[in-house]
């Protein structure tokens, strides 16, 4: 068992009634480089701020070396943070910025000087002591911020998207430097980013977060090759994500075609999400493959060609070193171990509502029921008042309505995943989750209003 320096247990965090973190548990081990990765609004920065002590979770426990520190204020925690926009003190020069924490510890002057000089040398800023921090470039300010955090010799260094403000080239260089710095100083780094490439490059372990929960924790290889669900697969790298049905162990059906795979342990005929990475698809002669498609688009990307292939109304993305002609029919072969099967994020295929008729109108032939406190009227349907109903809405019966005309307001878009033919969108209202289909790329982490098309619904009476 590795030693965990920080551990979070069942953390719940709300900000003015909005759930930011939902039951997060996480162990951070000594000397590792761990990255919290996720789209904006997923709770990664909040998690970092809880470790730093800037936020106190409403529920759950934070342990440092096995000691509960929930109520320990930030200045008494042996952690230091590198802030997103560096947060260098503009009224102090480089030396005084770096020496800030040491002076507070009341170390002797000579020792402070020695430590600061040494640290500035490590971050390549020798001779910059007297410079004003405002006169430094973004990359240099970044180094000062890192030096300022490291010089205090913290147990843990927290980095909140520290490279976000730098340009691409500088960012790539700094990624490598940061990783080397971490190895050289043998510190535990907790890094926050929304950039999956950055996370994969630098980390020992990646924590993928979405919508306030941890979707997966694993090594970069794990999360790339064995994503826990469609969200992780979609967020990390490029992927073809398709709806499939697990026929039996090691046998999956997608687009009506049975394929061999290596996964087992799913239920018989269980609907699943299937991930195939674009580089894992081998282009072969149509006669040699079960999946056949027509090339629609080819783009040269430097090391490979990116091809868009239409197969059974479904768009596939293929990376290949050999370009095919647009309009050509090709066969697509995937090795069984490159087909990755995942449980669906939304377990049921449809939205099921069990309810009671609130009132009905025989004359107009309508039935009204209550949905999260709002009256929803089903047209062209009549059931008696008080009758228990089971309403099944398939994903295509749910749509995003214009503001104010929807039946359910303030519904949060939790994930949007392209499933080859359309987006599969999972939403969350006050009391439950919803699944819907859409051809539009809806914006994740926004609030919308939902409408229901009851003509596509199946409604039956329940006793």
């Amino acid at each position, binding site marked *: 068992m590795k030693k965990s320096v920080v551990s979070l247990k069942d953390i719940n965090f709300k900000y003015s009634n909005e759930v930011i973190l939902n039951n997060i548990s996480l162990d951070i081990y000594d000397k590792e480089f761990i990255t919290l990765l996720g789209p904006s609004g997923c709770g990664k920065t909040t998690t970092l701020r809880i470790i*730093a*002590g*800037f936020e106190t979770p409403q529920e759950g426990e934070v342990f440092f070396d096995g000691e509960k520190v929930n109520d320990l*204020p*930030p*200045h008494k925690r042996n*952690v*230091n*943070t590198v*802030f*997103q*926009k560096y*947060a*260098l*003190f*503009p*009224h102090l020069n480089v030396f005084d910025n770096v020496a*800030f*924490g040491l002076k*507070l*510890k009341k170390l002797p002057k000579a020792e402070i000087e020695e430590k600061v000089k040494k640290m500035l040398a490590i971050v390549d800023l020798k001779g910059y002591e007297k410079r004003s921090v405002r006169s430094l470039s973004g990359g240099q300010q970044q180094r000062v911020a890192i030096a*300022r*955090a490291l010089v*205090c010799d913290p147990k843990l260094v927290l980095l909140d998207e520290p490279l976000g403000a730098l340009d691409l080239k500088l960012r790539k260089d700094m990624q490598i430097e940061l990783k080397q710095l971490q190895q050289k100083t043998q510190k535990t780094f907790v890094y926050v980013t929304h950039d999956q490439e950055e996370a994969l490059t630098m980390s020992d372990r990646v924590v993928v977060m979405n919508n306030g929960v941890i979707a997966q924790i694993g090594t970069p290889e794990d999360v790339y090759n064995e994503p826990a669900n469609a969200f992780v697969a979609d967020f990390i790298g490029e992927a073809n994500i398709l709806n499939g049905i697990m026929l039996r162990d090691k046998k999956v059906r997608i687009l009506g075609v049975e394929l061999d795979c290596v996964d087992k342990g799913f239920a018989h005929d269980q609907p699943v999400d299937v991930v195939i990475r674009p580089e894992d698809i081998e282009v072969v002669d149509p006669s040699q493959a079960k999946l056949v498609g027509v090339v629609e688009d080819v783009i040269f990307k430097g090391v490979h060609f990116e091809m868009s292939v239409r197969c059974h109304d479904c768009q596939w993305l293929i990376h290949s070193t050999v370009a095919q002609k647009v309009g050509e029919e090709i066969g697509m072969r995937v090795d069984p171990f490159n087909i990755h099967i995942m449980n669906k994020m939304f377990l049921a295929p449809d939205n099921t509502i069990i309810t009671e008729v609130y009132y009905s109108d025989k004359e107009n032939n309508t039935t009204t029921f209550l949905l999260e406190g709002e009256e929803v009227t089903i047209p062209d349907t009549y059931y008696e008042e008080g009758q228990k109903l089971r309403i099944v809405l398939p994903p295509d019966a749910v749509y995003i309505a214009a503001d104010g005309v929807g039946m359910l307001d303030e519904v949060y878009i939790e994930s949007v995943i392209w499933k080859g033919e359309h987006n599969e969108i999972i939403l969350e209202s006050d009391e439950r989750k919803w699944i819907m289909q859409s051809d539009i790329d809806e914006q994740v982490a926004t609030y919308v209003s939902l409408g229901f098309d009851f003509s596509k619904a199946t409604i039956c009476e329940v006793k």
Partner: protein
Amino acid sequence: MKKKGQKIYFAVIMAFLYLPIVYLIAYSFNDGKTSVWKGFTMKWYTALFNDAQIMGSLYNTLIIALLASVIATVLGTLASIGIYNFKGGVRSAIQNISNIPIVNPEIVTGVSLMLLFTFAGTMMGFEMGFVTVLLAHIGFCTPYVILNVTPRIKQMDSSLYEAALDLGCSPVQAFFKVVLHELMPGIFSGFLISFTYSLDDFVITYFTRGSRFQTLPVQIYTMTHQRINPKANALSALLFVTVLVILIISNIVSSRKDKEAAR
């Protein structure tokens, strides 16, 4: 461009603003009490400096201005930080109440405070004077401090404060070592505005001063009300020169700062 016309018009406006003051100053050197020129003299200046009452009110004015602006600055800076942490509706309600002394006609503020002080005075047995004037001045200065400090709080990167905590400052240390530096320009201009408004205030002082306490503006009122007093002219000249010098210096200082910032 009709540059010439613009320049003439501009000169006329400037003349309108300055000629009365020039006239006032010129006649401070007139050896006679009327508007007829009777020859050059400095006697009104000597009279001014020998007038113990005027010098006393000048002293009172400076003490009140200094105390009121310092207290208002401390009170207002703390208040700005606290008010900033209120949310939405409550915050804007507090800000609106805080702005009442600024938007309300001065005379209404003056009489309302007079009512308070006379009432409290009869209850607790004190008379209006130095303390009541000081309280009134703090009251109308603090909102100006808040108006100057609040934008600096808004502009401040809140992670600076967190960085200070992160590096081991207690909240109080973080305030003095980091936050105060960031808010300083706002605090300073709030202090300056408070100081000058307090120096210049007549209306509110008039209603809260009681019967004996004099400040310079009140003294000017007694000197000039319904009569001509060349000592007032001499005083105008001195005040004018003081104001001019202070403004020129502050202008030079700020333009130097701009240049440094540009470098």
